[in-house]
């Protein structure tokens, strides 16, 4: 079986949608001549030319607004943020313009636009370049938020995002760009808003997304050695969140651990916990635990960076705790 990385998956998705629809264009810093700072957009300028693969000035607020205007006028922009940390400069346009315009116009206008780029932790980039925005954007009605793990999902979901009639936040992860995944012979049928059970189990449910689904899978492997069968759910989409898949799993396992790289307070995990508590209270045998990034800006020092982020061991321990077995090994 051949392999594909998330980087290649993203590039293929963009190229295929650009071939299919001349209204689709890509704009961002270094996406063209430089071939992308993470080489995600390599070769796209050559194939599509500078009219459709546009190197922008470093001007996030302005080019985000510009692309929203272009979307309102009938184009389908893909906006690349070098990382989502820089998209904070454009937050007003994303939330106040892109997310709200359909509602404010009573449906007269739509804003088909994809905001994509690296989100969350990189490698030793410290506080200003290492933050997960899944929780931030997921709070906003009018936005869809996608954060895939598998390369096959990444490709399929990015294609869905480009074809979507509204604004989609597409959260990638720098560390995942290099991950190799088996390439599916046939493209998966995937849609925005559906989670996927990656590993079936009966003792405890672990839900996660993006890079931390990898950690969840590793923790499940370790738990198996201790006789605990963890069910691992990859959320894939954070908004709209597929609560049905989580609740169905909890009905079976009666225990839930959420994992995310972002902060706990007002985060994705605690929001899931609230809904599961309200809708599946009778099925829970233990409190829901949230394994998250620690409540600090991300430090630079290697040992501190590791401590600040969710570790496989923490997921393992949380599951053991919920199963009322000692985590000592």
């Amino acid at each position: 079986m051949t392999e594909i990385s998330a980087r290649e998956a993203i590039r293929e998705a963009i190229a295929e949608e650009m071939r299919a629809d001349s209204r689709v264009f890509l704009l961002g810093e270094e996406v063209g001549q430089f071939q992308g700072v993470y080489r995600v957009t390599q070769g796209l300028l050559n194939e599509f030319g500078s009219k459709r693969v546009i190197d922008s000035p470093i001007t996030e607020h302005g080019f985000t607004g510009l692309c929203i205007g272009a979307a309102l006028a009938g184009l389908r922009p893909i906006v690349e943020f070098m990382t989502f940390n820089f998209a904070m400069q454009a937050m007003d346009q994303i939330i106040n313009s892109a997310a709200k315009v359909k509602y404010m116009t009573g449906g007269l206008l739509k804003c088909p636009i994809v905001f994509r780029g690296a989100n969350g932790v990189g490698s030793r980039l410290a506080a200003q370049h290492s933050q997960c925005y899944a929780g931030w954007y997921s709070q906003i009605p009018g936005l869809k938020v996608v954060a895939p793990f598998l390369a096959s999902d990444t490709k399929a979901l990015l294609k869905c995002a480009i074809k979507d009639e509204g604004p989609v936040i597409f959260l990638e992860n720098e560390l995942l760009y290099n991950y190799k995944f088996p390439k599916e012979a046939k493209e998966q049928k995937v849609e925005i808003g559906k989670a996927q059970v990656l590993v079936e189990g009966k003792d405890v449910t672990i839900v996660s997304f993006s890079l931390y689904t990898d950690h969840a899978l590793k923790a499940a492997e370790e738990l198996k050695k201790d006789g605990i069968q963890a069910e691992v759910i990859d959320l894939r989409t954070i908004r709209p969140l597929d609560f049905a898949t989580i609740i169905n799993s909890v009905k079976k396992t009666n225990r839930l651990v959420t994992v995310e790289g972002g902060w706990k307070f007002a985060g994705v995990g605690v929001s899931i916990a609230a809904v599961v508590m309200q809708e599946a209270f009778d099925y829970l045998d233990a409190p829901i635990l949230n394994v998250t990034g620690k409540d600090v800006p991300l430090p630079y020092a290697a040992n501190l960076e590791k401590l600040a982020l969710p570790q496989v061991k923490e997921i393992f321990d949380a599951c053991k705790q919920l199963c009322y077995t000692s985590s000592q090994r």
Partner: protein
Amino acid sequence: MNKISYKEKHESCYYKMLLIRRFEEKAAQFYGMGKISGFCHLYIGQEAVVVGMLTVAKQSDKHVTSYRDHGHMLALGSDAGPIMAELMGKATGCSKGKGGSMHMFDPSNNFYGGHGIVGAQVSIGTGLAFAEKYLDTKGIAYVYYGDGAANQGQVYESFNMAKLWNLPVVYVIENNEYALGTSVSRATAMTDLYKRGESFGIPGIRVDGMDVLEMEKAAIKASTYVGEGRGPFIIEAKTYRYKGHSMSDPATYRTRAEVQDVMEKRDPINNFKKFVLEKGHVAQAKLDEIESSIKKIVAEAASFAEESPFPDPTDLYTDVE
């Protein structure tokens, strides 16, 4: 430029300016009665700016402005009824009652809002111009913003991209002298706003925004320049708003005499009326006829809005995604 006679054009200018004024006077009255709520920014005093610009714009050109948007909607030909209904938050409003005064749109007239965040429409409007160029539709985007927005960073980010990519955009600064309660000189280091494009290579002119024919001349100059594919152009229209920043602003930062003086000497409607009568372009009888037709339109818009239902509770959840 539209190929219509002076007479028709002058009648149309008078009609549009007076419609905006009478419509908004009615809106102010409704606001006072509690029938319109929230922020409601009136265009009264500034009518000549958009009306003059629109004498030149082509049907397919695109337009965007701030929250002070009723005048632009009316001048572009949107029906008065749904605008008044929107102000009252009714289901028949142009945004189904979900947008209100600050968020009005009419894509059928190429009007893209109606934006509540100061300066946001400048980069959005630059994107409208980007789409014109991308699709090769040969149109121009007209982007209106105030002297307050002229100090927002994204305006200059937009200038840079507009010139870099030679986008067909006319920036119209409606300098009404006050950003809410702060006069231009108290907020702006260099008050010649039309020069703000110089470091980007974007030409600009200053024009009397209280004179609809001066606005027309400026619009011809701008649209010709942009139409030749030379990139963006800036017009600074010196104008004045008679009312507060919004209906909730008593405007205590300026004297009554200052406002009175402008109303007496520079009023765009009275001065234009005097001009067309003196020149004999439009007869008094015709002006009277226009006035009474506007009276009827505003009255009908008011009763349409008043008689319309509020949105159905189920509409709370529609048009979100």
